[in-house]
């Protein structure tokens, strides 16, 4: 009953500024003493949740993000990468997201440069010639082109869609004004990998489009995030089909996380999102029932879409 009342109060799009203030306060109260955010109630900060919350703060406050930036810089490894969570000792898929966050917060250039060089070195395991050879000659159970590799979730595994997307966005954003050949080549390779993994009817899932000859379905969240990395690319039939698929699916999605990413993605393609924002506003209410802080932060970013600099926008 109480949850329904909370949702009703914020079901009107004219209340969105009020709602965002409430949601922001809600997010702020969940900040850990360390300065980061965990996904749920644990004391262990997650890089993804912290970066998304930091992007919200960067869009909402003038100069109030210093402590979060210091934290991100503290968590960065000397090789330029970031761990997936506080306490982990390995560079991970969050490095691209952390670099985009640093860019949004006007972070120091040397930290960004170290991150850039890590991203340029990192690759999915199939990027090694021996594995490429194996996938080309003997192992055909999954349909993909091993010459087009992206980034892994964790070193020692293959390329997957989400880590590749965040890495491509970060590379495009960081090198927007001064892109060298090496970065351009790596971006092209990453974009090529994403286009190679697109599902048959458009859209993306984790990264396997056809297994044992059977097409696998796309996921809403993965598709929305993948399209963000391709926003400045030529509108190929694959991108058009994926955009169409996402628009169609976004009309019925009831999950806060997927809907929020739909809004962030469709917005950069200049698609109408106001009706989706109204639905999202109704779904989340005052945010009390959204226990996942990464989801809450993404939802706030989506609700504020159009009123702030889009954190994943790539300059054309």
């Amino acid at each position, binding site marked *: 009953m109480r949850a329904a009342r909370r949702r009703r109060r914020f079901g009107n799009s004219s209340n969105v500024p009020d709602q965002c203030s409430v949601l922001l306060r809600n997010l702020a109260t969940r900040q850990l003493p360390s300065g980061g955010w965990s996904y749920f109630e644990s004391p262990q900060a997650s890089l993804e949740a912290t970066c998304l919350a930091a992007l919200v703060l960067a869009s909402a406050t003038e100069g109030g993000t210093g402590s979060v930036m210091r934290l991100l810089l503290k968590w960065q490894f000397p090789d330029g990468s970031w761990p997936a969570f506080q306490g982990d000792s390995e560079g991970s898929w969050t490095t691209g997201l952390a670099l985009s966050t640093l860019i949004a917060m006007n972070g120091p250039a040397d930290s960004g440069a170290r991150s850039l060089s890590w991203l340029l070195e990192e690759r999915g395991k199939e990027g090694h010639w021996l594995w490429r050879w194996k996938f080309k000659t003997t192992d055909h159970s999954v349909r993909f082109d091993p010459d087009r590799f992206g980034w892994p979730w964790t070193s*020692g595994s293959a390329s997957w869609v989400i880590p590749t997307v965040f890495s491509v966005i970060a590379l495009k954003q960081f090198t927007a004004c001064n892109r060298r050949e090496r970065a351009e080549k790596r971006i092209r390779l990453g974009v090529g990998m994403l286009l190679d993994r697109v599902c048959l009817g458009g859209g993306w899932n984790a990264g396997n489009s056809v297994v044992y000859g059977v097409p696998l379905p796309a996921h809403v969240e993965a598709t929305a995030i993948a399209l963000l990395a391709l926003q400045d690319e030529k509108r190929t039939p694959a991108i058009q089909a994926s955009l169409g698929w996402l628009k169609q699916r976004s009309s019925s999605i009831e999950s806060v996380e997927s809907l929020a990413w739909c809004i962030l993605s469709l917005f950069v393609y200049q698609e109408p999102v106001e009706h989706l924002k109204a639905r999202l506003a109704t779904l989340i209410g005052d945010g009390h029932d959204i226990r996942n802080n990464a989801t809450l932060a993404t939802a706030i970013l989506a609700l504020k879409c159009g009123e702030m600099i889009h954190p994943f926008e790539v300059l054309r």
Partner: protein
Amino acid sequence: MNVDRRRFLGSAAGMAATAGVAADWLWPRHSVSYRRPRSFVAILNAAEYSEKIETLLMDGLRLFRLNLLGKAILLKPNMVEDLPGPVNTNANIIGAAARCFLRLGAARIAIGEGPGHQRDTELVVQAADLKPHLADRHIEFVDLNRDELVRVKLRANYSGLGELWLPRSVLDSDFVVSMPKVKTHHWAGVTLSLKNMFGIVPGMKYGWPKNLLHWHGIHESILDICATVPIHFVIADGITAMEGNGPLQGTARELRKIVLADDPVAADATCARLMGFDPLRVQHLSEGGRFLGNLRADRITMLAERAEVPICPFAVLPDFHYLLARADM
């Protein structure tokens, strides 16, 4: 000294076997053993996912005389994707199991899953229709992909991983119940209670899918995970199972069984027999039978129905025809 070829080959084979035994003795691949003299399995007949399932489960669970008083129980269902068809453990069975364990004295129930493909866990929970079963304040859902993590040294060394970060909610549980959907699997042959434990490996660290485990060997990783996080009980959803190109794209198979067991190897061996497979031919089962539980039928006491071999075995992809049991078994 004259050594003929046959004697030489015989000696070489003998030496290799001795070296293998010595290597196992010198560098054992597992530091634990959960095998007991006997294991207990109950096959329950259930034609559909109706409200009667709770009564059926309760009757089945009582056969095992479990001591659950005050315990924190983790139910680990198999919830992979928001897809139609028999992809996920049915929510009615999960909810019924949670309520049964509370009635048997458990202090609290966590239903924990880290979906392996779909990053949006809320979407999977919505699609599985699990939310109505979370109304009881003693039953909560834990997203194992995003839980607090603890670095754990693995208690077996088949994969070479050495250690894994695992969710605190799993490690702090008193009693772990694996609740697989009975399915074929296009990489592992079958996905049952042991393979189901891939879902405790956190996506926030290892990704969606948990691809590092594949690179280190699926069977090997299953053995290492299950040695490290012992499964105390199994409730396998085989009412509508999946055959063919599982775990996502297979076809429904009406098996009409729920399998309960106090031993995951015995449970999976029984499910494999019900599918028409020879459990010895499932790599992680045959090896798991050495230390994770009992594989041999003569060490398994059936508390309810017998494990009847189906007239028509489950369909498998061509790569897995070797799993099919011989007709005389």
